[in-house]
């Protein structure tokens, strides 16, 4: 009888302590989670703003203007590009429909 009571009380105390500790830990974790979530949202927002800014700063008109001022490059001419492999008989195909077209 007596040992049972002692064991019960001991178990009770241990359980209480354990529960208190776990609860405390959970509360801490929850706080950490909330702050991480807040952080995440802040970052998501920052990324959104930065993406907009990047897109704004890389407007083609602005890039063209900057390139004209600071670079000595010109648009590529067709004759500067070599394409491999080249089909030798390209232009003569004008009059005949392609196989894919006939299938449609």
């Amino acid at each position, binding site marked *: 009888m007596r040992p049972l009571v002692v064991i019960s009380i001991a178990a009770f105390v241990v359980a209480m302590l354990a529960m208190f500790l776990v609860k405390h830990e959970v509360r801490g974790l929850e706080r950490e989670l909330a702050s991480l979530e807040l952080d995440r*949202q802040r970052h998501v927002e920052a990324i959104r703003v930065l993406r907009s800014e990047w*897109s*704004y700063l890389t407007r*083609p008109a602005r890039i063209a203007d900057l390139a004209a001022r600071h670079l000595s490059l010109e648009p590529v001419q067709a*004759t500067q590009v070599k*394409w491999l492999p080249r089909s030798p008989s390209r232009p003569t195909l004008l009059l*005949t429909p392609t196989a894919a077209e006939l299938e449609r």
Partner: protein
Amino acid sequence: MKDLAVRCWWRPHHAPVPGGEAERELPPSLERARGRLMLTGVVFLLCFGALVVRTLDVAVIGAPVGTTVTGAGGALNPAARADIVDRNGVLLASNLPTHALYVEPGKIMDRDAAVAALGDLFPDLDLRRVTTLVDSDRKTALLRHNLTPEQAHAINRLGDPGLWLERREQRFYPQGRLFAHAVGFTDVDNRGLAGIEKAVGEELRRRAGSDGGPLALSLDIRVQHALADALHETMTAHRARGAAGIVMDVQNGEVLALVSLPAFDPKAPDRDGTEARFNRATHGTYELGSTFKPFTVALALDRGIAGLEDSYDATRPLRASRYLIRDHRPENRWLTVPEILIHSSNVAAARLAMQVGAERQRAFFDALGMFERAPLEAPERGRPIAPRRWGAIATMTVGFGHGLAVTPLHLIASYAALVNGGVTVTPTLLRRGAGASLERRRVISAETSAIMRMLLYAVVAEGTGGKAAVPGYLVGGKTGTAEKAIGGKYKRDSMITNFVGVFPIDRPRYAVLTLFDEPKGNEETFGFATAGWTAAPTAGAVIERIAPFLGIPAAIGPGESEAEPPIVWRDGDGGQHASL
């Protein structure tokens, strides 16, 4: 007492019990106490059982898979809209967080200090209006949209309970005017009012709610910029009222660029006036002139009504009741079918159209969708204006592009069908996946389509479209110059000039349309403002710029000799014509 303790309710009845028979002899008061004790035990047991079951339920069975923690900002926001990006992922429209400032007159602590602070923060604010607002008995009133972060911070620091901020989402268009007509814009509550923003507003909202990522358009910012730039240059040089341009994939109908000039600022759409808001590319309907002749020729060739070697009388203007059909630059001779396009003869085209007949012509334009609004993800789509009576006169005039007013979008989509092997395409501003099933109807045979490619090539190589030629690329196309009908009369000096170019014409991938509203001649063009001098060179400039980065192989490379003449045909006198 000991007796009671050992005689617990769970003790088996057959076990030997100390005290033996004495059990039954318990006094009634103890008997009652035992009954109560048992009842209490059972109740407690039930309670603990319920707790155990519930704990297991929460911790083991119903444990959430992965955490779903939603913070304050993650809640569904009615103003949330997905981003819009171009086909390569470049941002075209996004939401930026801002604040809106509300005033609650009943809670204002220090009226004069608050008004003074507001005056400092917003120099353009009408302070008298604010004062009357603060003195009024309204509950709350919106004072200001789109505060900058600094302004929001200053309001918070002020700490007046009568002034409070609400988080808002503001639509932002980093590309400014470049995509004004195609993408459109929203109102202050982020409801789409024009363009893609209106046409697929529901989809944008749905995506934002379900984290579906940005909406990808078929537009390509590089192509859009090249087109807008070239159109703007010509428009300025020729003092045109406006311009429009479209670049379309002729195989699947994807629109790579859609420009209408003058453009407006999507941030303040009202500031640039209604003319700038008007989308000439998809909303404006115009009689487009000679760019219609290829339809007449294609129909005649496809139905076997005329052959390439047949020739038509263009020796003198053609009288049709009270109209006189004449050529812009008359050849005054009989013209073969290819020559009708090369020299752009109204007279010969009218004769060809008469031979085709009204019924077939009407059915053909119907099949091309020229009597309906063109399908596109845009609310601004013009309804074509067709002749009320499709008689002989209408047949002749429509044969060379007068009497039937359509949008530039109709024209380029129909050209796509002419050159892509003869099937219709459905224009779209949304990016189509590689495996997208397309609804297509055949309008001409693949053979006729191949002939049309050759003829359009001849127009650029030898005819009125010469200034659209691009060194190294095979370009085909057709010019169109039409006098504008103003008040029922055609006006000589106000013209619509347009050009549709296709490249590479031997393996058609893209079509480019350019259109100018009332261009005027200048010194450089010897006073001419016709399509061959305005629209064609602009399209050529666009093709020259976009072809390399669209991955179109050039027909000739460095150090190579020019290609063999690709096409040969006979003219009316039996002489041979060769191109290139």
